[in-house]
């Protein structure tokens, strides 16, 4: 029977780098996806920092119901610290209102996608940061709202309302700039688009 995520993390913390490497292999993709559409540069450094921070803060794993929730909580913090360094003029609370597009308007250098997917990626980047995180975790990582709530350290009800607002805003902006090969601009099939995007993002990160 294969060791659990928590066991691997513990072994790694004890100095077993093979265990760390296995954990890294399990979660490299989700972490990479997490940063892919949020930062223009330094993607790899942030992925690396997230794993390193997981070991450092492993005590807090106990507070979470799953390793995934813990991992994305760490990743969210790494991202917030990074964005704060990047935009030191903005007050800390602003990170809840601003989008990554406001903070760093150039798209990621990691992503390569078809042109018609750029629209959706761009729309995601234009959401306020907490909404974008919630949307991506929901659609790309298949996480349930309570798990997301643990990751972003918000009440479950807030996550649900974030999801609703995020969907509304995405649909609005997609109606304004419909993806090229979608004939029906009226009904935007967000589920379908999100699935396609996840594939693209994964291909880019894998």
């Amino acid at each position, binding site marked *: 029977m294969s060791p659990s995520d928590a066991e691997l993390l513990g072994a790694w913390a004890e100095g077993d*780098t093979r265990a*760390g*490497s296995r954990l*890294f292999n399990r979660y*490299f993709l989700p972490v990479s996806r997490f940063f892919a559409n949020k930062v223009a540069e330094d993607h*790899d450094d942030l992925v*690396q920092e997230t794993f390193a921070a997981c070991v450092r803060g492993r005590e807090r794993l106990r507070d979470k119901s799953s390793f995934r929730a813990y991992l994305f909580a760490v990743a969210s913090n790494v991202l917030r610290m990074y964005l704060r360094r990047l935009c030191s003029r903005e007050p800390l609370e602003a990170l809840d209102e601003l989008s990554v597009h406001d903070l760093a308007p150039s798209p990621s250098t*990691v992503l390569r996608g078809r042109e018609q997917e750029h629209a959706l990626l761009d729309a995601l980047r234009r959401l306020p940061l907490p909404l974008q995180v919630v949307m991506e975790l929901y659609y790309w990582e298949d996480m349930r709202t309570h798990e997301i709530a643990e990751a972003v350290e918000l009440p479950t009800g807030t996550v649900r309302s974030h999801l609703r607002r995020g969907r509304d805003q995405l649909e609005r902006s997609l109606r304004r700039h419909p993806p090229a090969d979608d004939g029906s601009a009226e009904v935007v099939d967000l589920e379908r688009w999100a699935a396609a995007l996840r594939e693209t993002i994964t291909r*880019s990160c894998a």
Partner: protein
Amino acid sequence: MSDEPSPSSVTIDVPGRPDNAARRDRMRAALFGEEPRARTLGRFEIRGELGRGGMGVVLEAFDPELDRPVALKLLHPRLDDAAQADLLREARLLAKVAHPHVVHVYEAGRIDGRVLIAMELVRGQTLRQWQRAAPRGCAEILDAYRQAGQGLAAAHAAGVVHRDFKPHNCIRDEAGHVRVLDFGLADHPSAGDGTSGGTRAYMAPEQLEGEACDARSDQFSFCVALHEALHGVHPLAQDERRGLGEALPSEGTGVRVPRWIDRALERGLAEDPRWRWPDMDALLHALRPRRRARWVVAALALGVGVGAAGVGLVASGDEPVEPCGGAELRVSESWNDARRDAVRRALLDTGLPMASETWPRVRDELDAHLERWAQTHTEVCRATRVRGEQSVERLDLRMACLEQRLDAVDGLLDVLEHADAEVVIAAIDAVHELPRAEPCRRLEPRASPEPPEAAVLRRELGRALAERDAGRPERALEQLEALRERAVASGTRWLAAELLVRRGEVLEELGRGADADRPLDQGLWAALEVGHDEAAFEAAVAHAGVVGLLLIEEERGLVLVDHARALLGRIGAPDDARQELELVAGLVLGRHGRYEEAMQSLDRAEAGVEPGGREHLDVLAARGNVGLWCDRLDDARSQLERHLEIASGVYGPRHPEVANTLNDLAVLEIQQGRAKAAEARARAAVEILQESVGDHPRVADALMNLAGILMIREEPDLEGALRRIEDARRIYVEALGEGSAKVADADLALAMGLESLGRLEQAEQAYRRNLELQRRLKGERHPDLRHPLLALGTLLLDTGRPAEAIEPIEQAVALARELARSAGEGADPSGFIRDGERLLAQARAEAEP
């Protein structure tokens, strides 16, 4: 069109993005202290992936052996063997193309059974991305595509066709430098995964139909891409074969595209490859940036202000604009202080002693030539723009002619700026031979205009002739032949005829009479057939010279002179042509002993020539030669001494032209029995010529003269003489062929040397051999036969066979008398007839029983 990425177009835009696997390895190394796994392919270390496509994958890699980054194209294993072999062959051809606008293929081969091509790693945007990133101006687009076009042309020259040219396959780096990549890697039919959809948009019709494609197919694709870049729309969007449908975005680029660009593109987009431009060079020439409008140049020139503001060229205010005032400015674009300095330095840097004498003469001659050009330019312009007496059509035609003349100057200046010894020697003549501007004033439109590529070919012809005029005839010959093939291929028969004639002329200058015979003959008839009278005239004149002077055939030479005379009338008998003809006629007549007629021709040639000028030299040299050939030695001497004086001034005292005169004077001194003076002149001539022209028949002529003098001086140096004759003979054989008259002359001299050394039997055989050859070459009654006849007779007499000696001596005296009769009363200054008669009397006396 589809955005389907081709193997390398997706990726190169992202600077330095490494492959994900490698990134993960690096992160692991940082987190867990693991060494990053080194991934290698053969000797190449893989750094990442740049892209994928139907044909395979492109990797970023490092070549540790040559210490450089490379892009590795690894072809898909499912390509069939034939396709792989094709691609390998093309990649290897391309590896030989080192061109700034072609992504360099370093090597190609197989690793683990897969075809691998290692090439230059270029970072930048594809032209497609560059075009989309921001609105681009017409000039920048044209510049980028001209670079790509040059890359295509270079590959075509190496025998590689791209087959899939499109903006996705051109990389533009940050410095704006454009390179073409993926030659011959077009989605091969056997790739068979349908990724060729995006490519069909740019394909030539013959490719769409699955027919064979060649360089002209690339030209088509190039024109599609450039048209699309400039206008924002595909030129053949409605072509159903391309599957572009209605979805094509058709918003224009807002770029104002000049008509001449569209005209050039239209031709490249012709459905039938034969109607396109003959090659990329021709298309690129048609697409070259045009000169700025004249008044802009004028304003700029005045902007630097040398108190010229009042000249009235500025297109401003109420001042009337002189519409024809641009000639000097146009000249100064080609011939200015910078260019002057470059030419001066290039000439002096050769270190030839004569260079410092050559430079001021070249400069003055160019100044004068361009001043005449500017006058003609102004005159032609005013005839339409000011006086209104000349149609605009004629103005265009004549201005185009003038531009060609200036192109010729540009071409010559290019050659002069890279002068070597040969160029310095020929420089003065080259400037003098520049095509004159004046005839452009008389130019009339032709009934059937030449196809557009004729202009391109003509420009290149100018360059080839500049090589010839600058003393690099071998190079000129190569270029002329290549041009002729293109002219024939494109049906430019008018020009093809002219090129034959030019080829003959260059061969004549090389002294290769036998080789020149045929192209000149063909050139004459080809020119007559298409009604190109100027070329026909040139052919006849050159051919008369070749036949009459190099091959020494009297009758045929004179027939050709008659042809040329008939043609002179057809071209309006301009002075320079008339003079050229009379000069050749005089020489041919004189060479065959017809002194009086020769002198009449030369008198006509001299009429209207400025005394002491460059043309005067030709006439004087001809008179001197004719005097020598016809035994009018005192006349010849005075002509040649005058020639030496003028030539030293025109060319400088250490110039091959001066050597030629010295050479002729030496011949004269020998014939008049002044051996010492002759030897000094001959040695000086040999020295100057060897310094300058190498193994040219002219050096051999000088060696022959020197050898003759060494034999007859007071203390003969027979060994030295024979050595020089053998050198000369070798040069003649190489240049003219074994059976040529010059070789016969060398054999005669060899025989005389052998006789002087007392090797009489060998000498007798050599005389008889020479007589036989000369009879065959020149006929029984040629005056040249008198020398071997008399020599043979003398030898027979000296070896105690007086009876056998009588006949050859009789014949020699008879030929000398005929020559004397045609040259005028009592002409026997060298005493040939007197000596002959004395020997004849002796032979008869000794032969008495």
